[in-house]
């Protein structure tokens, strides 16, 4: 069937992507790893100094050479991720369940809950920091009716409340995973619910034994993507860091950015940080994927 001129035409179509793969992924990966073993201010190529694994040692907690600030950044990032991602997914699932009912006007509600997702991160952060402004924000104005003025939280300006505020903002931004869940819920065959109802399963049991297994691939997808992105949180931290007390919003990605692009430029150290972040993400995601292979229900077994 395949004529001669057709052989290897794949190259022609895949070429732009392959060039990108080599020049924008493979070569930079090699560069990044090499740089992480050096000390360099990014100015002259002659200034590159080989230091081996020194930078990685600074990122191990409890050692004498530990960079305490980096440990703080890792802790902040992990705390935020562990709180924000599950709450975001629960909100997304709850909304998707409500919206998947066959009722009129669901398109309007779907748009309302998706609206925050379309805002640019700068606009989101500006709106939330205005809403949660300790003095002039709507939240504290309303709270002041029931809470004494000096007991009002400082939100983004407070060491304790800054992360919960960000987590709340992340829950508000659940429109993306919500759409994924909605699409998955729409593919669940109604006959499964009918069969379960005939067997006398109540609403809770139908959710637990029919809905949840059926949408488990979507849960796995949202969880993995959500974790990867939350671990890389940058925009919010960058825009709000100045307000936070005691580095409460110093996330690893921000620490990396500041180390590399603020003076004194520590290109090698920042590169090592990138690989540590990659390792942390892998340590988080791979067990979930492996567990997912056992727990997640696929209609087609491969």
């Amino acid at each position, binding site marked *: 069937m395949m004529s001669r001129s057709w052989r290897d035409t794949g*190259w022609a179509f*895949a070429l*732009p992507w392959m060039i990108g793969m080599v020049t*924008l992924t493979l070569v*930079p990966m090699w560069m990044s790893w090499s740089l992480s073993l050096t000390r360099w201010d990014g100015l002259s190529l002659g200034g590159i100094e080989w230091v081996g694994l020194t930078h990685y040692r600074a990122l191990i907690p409890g050692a004498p050479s530990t960079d305490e600030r980096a440990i703080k950044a890792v802790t902040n990032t992990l705390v935020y991720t562990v709180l924000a991602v599950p709450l975001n997914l629960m909100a997304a699932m709850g909304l998707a369940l409500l919206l998947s009912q066959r009722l009129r*006007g669901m398109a309007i509600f779907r748009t309302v809950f998706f609206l925050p997702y379309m*805002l640019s991160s700068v606009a989101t952060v500006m709106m939330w920091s205005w*809403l949660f402004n300790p003095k002039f924000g709507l939240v504290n104005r309303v709270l002041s009716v029931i809470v004494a003025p000096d007991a009002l939280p400082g939100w983004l300006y407070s060491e304790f409340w800054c992360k919960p505020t960000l987590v709340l903002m992340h829950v508000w931004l659940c429109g993306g995973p919500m759409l994924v869940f909605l699409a998955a819920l729409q593919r669940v065959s109604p006959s499964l619910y009918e069969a379960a109802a005939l067997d006398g399963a109540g609403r809770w049991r139908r959710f637990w034994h029919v809905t949840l297994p059926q949408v488990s691939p979507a849960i796995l997808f949202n969880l993995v993507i959500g974790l990867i992105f939350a671990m890389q949180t940058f925009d919010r931290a960058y*825009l709000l860091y100045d307000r936070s007390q005691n580095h409460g919003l110093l996330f690893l990605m921000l620490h990396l950015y500041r180390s590399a692009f603020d003076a004194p430029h520590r290109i090698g150290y920042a590169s090592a940080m*990138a690989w540590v972040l990659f390792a942390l993400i892998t340590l988080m995601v791979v067990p979930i994927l492996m567990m997912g292979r056992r727990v997640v229900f696929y209609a087609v077994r491969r």
Partner: protein
Amino acid sequence: MMRRSWISYGVLTLLAMVSLTPFVWAFATSLKPIEQAYEFPPTMTLEQARWSNYTDVFDKLPFGQFMLNSTVIALAAVTGAVLTSSMAGYALARLPLRGKRFWFALLVASLMLPSQVLLIPHFLMYEALGWVGTYKPLIVPAWLGGGAFNVFLFRQYFRSIPMDVEEAAVLDGATRWQCYRRVLMPMARPAVVAATVLSLLYHWQAFLNPLLYLSDFRKYPVSLGLRMYQTMAGTWVNLLMAASLIALVPMVVAFACGFRAFDPRRRGH
């Protein structure tokens, strides 16, 4: 049944009100003079609303220019991303290609690689090429594959289309390019719409890359431009809120069009 639907509507309305609060608060602020923005409870009536804030947004800073810049960057990048990722997806799904397994493994690996590992080398490369200060670092990568996610999306979609479709076109004398352009791309419309809308959102919202590569504020996209309403002497919180809401409009329009394309009632099957 009747009662249950009323409960659902009640819960949804309540949640929608909570979810819309930041928008309502932002909108109310955007219509106030700056002195009143800090007043509570709001004393302003609707007749006093300063709609002129929405034109001031464009007068105080070149916000029109920011919007135009974002549009140029987003259109250029999305065109490249959809074109090159669909071509690569087509090749990986349906064309003879030596070492296909190897390339596919690379694709999956790059899907998992977080972007920050590449951040510094990319900066060094673009600096060496003299691209810093231009839009090239924001646009050129999109023309070289347009992101692993898009390639993967198209590869999966193209695999779900039966091979006969193409063989029929080939018997009619179509070239590979014609098969891709006239037969498969129209059939992959849902994937094209998803890739287009998601890439548009990604490039419209991009913050870190423009921050790294652009220093002249006249070249700023909206995402960076918004920040200037805050960092200028004193915050124009009213203008900032107005600008934030204006920047949202193009995305709402894009998604509305995208949703329409997805709506099963509008498609013939």
